């Protein structure tokens, strides 16, 4: 196991700046998730840690050593790619054994067999070991790809959206499985995704990344409850946070310079009231809960209600803000109020 330290790392591809002065400390045994939209520099960050790209500026330290001149093979990291990239000419067994047969390791064949079988049963693909890797379903392929990382027990696991190509059910299963494996092994994992649920459920720490810069780092709870900016607030929570002009809804003293009010379900108090300022446009029944769509003048508000909600479309409701989030004109969070 090892820690990772990225120090002011920058990387440009021709005229595009992929990473711009990114610094991040990842402690030993931590499950860190980098969350951001496509093109934010998540994958490039992973590739720099893996040694597949050289940073233009800045340093990467792995396990207390400057990794600048270390080849990927000698960094003791493993990489699960977004595309599973199983070797099509090899069987599942040989795919899993491939890292152990590398010239850098030279593990004895009986030991290889044992480790491959252990990992295969952990990932529930033991019955597929003899298959060609091309004869597997998407979920099985992805489990083999994860297995190829586990079989080596490296210091650091790097994962690039490993679940993005799976269907919802499988994604949920593997999410739990990954989290369990990480806890069992105490592994250091740097995981990249654009899926807030993956980030919230698996991470010890989340780093929100945009345009090559780290915007905020914190525990899932901190990031959710205490975002530094509109951008971060918008990335978490279902339905998405409602952004309203300050002063639209009655609340106490506004912080100075507050321009925008961010309100999630927990910040909104709703009451049926004939003279209320908002109109229920429609109610979406999701089964375990409802989405309530409100119209407030020219603004939309979406919030959650329990399934036995008394609201129905056409109702007038009074909306009250309860400790919402305030942002200034540049989208920066204002905490003093």
């Amino acid at each position, binding site marked *: 196991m090892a820690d990772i330290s990225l120090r002011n790392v920058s990387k440009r591809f021709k005229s595009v700046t992929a990473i711009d002065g990114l610094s991040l400390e990842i402690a030993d045994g931590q499950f860190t998730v980098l969350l951001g939209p496509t093109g934010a520099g998540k994958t490039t960050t992973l590739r720099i840690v*893996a*040694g*597949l790209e050289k940073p233009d500026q800045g340093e990467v330290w792995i396990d207390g050593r400057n990794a600048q001149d270390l*080849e*990927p*093979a000698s*960094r003791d*990291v*493993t*990489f699960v*790619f977004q*595309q*599973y*990239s*199983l*070797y*099509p*000419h090899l069987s599942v067994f040989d795919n899993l054994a*491939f*890292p152990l047969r*590398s*010239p*850098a*390791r030279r593990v004895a064949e009986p030991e290889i067999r044992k480790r491959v079988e252990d990992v295969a049963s952990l990932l529930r693909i033991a019955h597929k070991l003899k298959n060609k*890797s*091309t004869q597997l379903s*998407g979920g099985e*392929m992805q489990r083999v790809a994860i297995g*190829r990382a586990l079989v*080596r027990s490296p210091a650091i696991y790097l994962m690039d959206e490993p679940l993005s*190509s799976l269907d919802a059910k499988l994604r949920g299963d593997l999410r739990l499985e990954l989290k369990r494996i990480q806890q069992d092994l105490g592994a250091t994992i740097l995981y990249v995704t654009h899926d807030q649920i993956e980030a919230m459920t698996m991470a010890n720490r989340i780093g929100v990344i945009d345009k090559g810069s780290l915007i905020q780092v914190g525990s899932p709870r901190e990031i959710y409850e205490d975002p530094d900016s509109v951008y971060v607030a918008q990335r978490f929570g279902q339905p998405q946070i409602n952004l309203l002009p300050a002063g639209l809804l009655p609340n106490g003293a506004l912080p100075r310079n507050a321009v925008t009010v961010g309100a999630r379900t927990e910040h909104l108090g709703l009451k049926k009231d004939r003279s209320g300022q908002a109109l229920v446009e429609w109610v979406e029944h999701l089964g375990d809960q409802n989405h309530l769509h409100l119209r407030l003048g020219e603004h939309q508000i979406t919030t959650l209600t329990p399934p036995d909600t008394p609201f129905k479309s056409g109702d007038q409701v009074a909306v009250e803000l309860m400790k919402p989030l305030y942002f200034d004109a540049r989208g920066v969070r204002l905490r003093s109020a």
Partner: protein
Amino acid sequence: MSQALTTAHSVVAPTPLARRIAATIVILYALVSMIPLAWILMTGFKTPPDSIAYPPKLVFQPSLEGYCNLFTTRTRQTADYIQSLGPPQTICDEITRKRDMVIAGPSNYAPRFWNSLIIAFGSTFFAVSLGVLSAYAFSRFRIPLADDLLFFILSTRMMPPIAVAIPIYLMYRKLGLSDTALGMILLYTAVNVSLAVWLLKGFIDEIPREYEEAAMIDGYTRLHAFFKVVLPQAATGIAATAIFCLIFAWNEYAFAVLLTSGEAQTAPPFIPTIIGEGGMDWPAVGAGTTLFLIPLLVFTVLLRKHLLRGITFGAVRK
């Protein structure tokens, strides 16, 4: 759902009539293109009189005379002398004696054939080896002026190779490469390598980099990853390229005539010389040509399996 799909497909499926027309065209074409081959094959088994009979004989008594003549040189002898010899040792002895001749020794066909094998397979090996390495480099590394270099490599194919025959002839004379197997291997490699680079680059471009990157992170060097991961997946492209290179090197005639005359002569310039030895010996020519076809046929059949594209499909999601 599957029902609907089947119906949708059957719209574009050929009707029985279209199928029949297509089959007729294919069979006609196959017949037309196979007639020369059949002619050569039959001529090889005819006797010399049958081979020049007019109208041509489609039904004839097969004979091994062509093959005997191909592999031997013969001298004409008097009947008395032939009588004085013991009983014929081989079937070729027997055939030859009927024509008042005896076998004087082996012909040059076998060594010329061997030259063809060495030169064609040797140059194919080098062209494909060099081609796969440079194609990999062009595909994976940022090479300064890569596009210009690739164009330069392609441009060597833009004129007929024979246009540079005279300079090459003079160069080879000076360098002592004239009429050597090494010289011919170098020449055919040079002609084929541009084709190999371009063909293989396309195939290697299609192999995702993630494979090597995964291998390199897993403790392999780039070279190891190249051999363990890239080469097996490029097998299809390598097989196709090797077949193209071999076909060129095997059939090449003009340079072979110009640059080889003795030691290193290949089969293509040798076969026509058979005609001159002792009259119009068409059966020997037919026999020599038939045998000449076999190595290419075997090579292509052996590599057929690798030409099936399917093996590398599906393990990387695009």
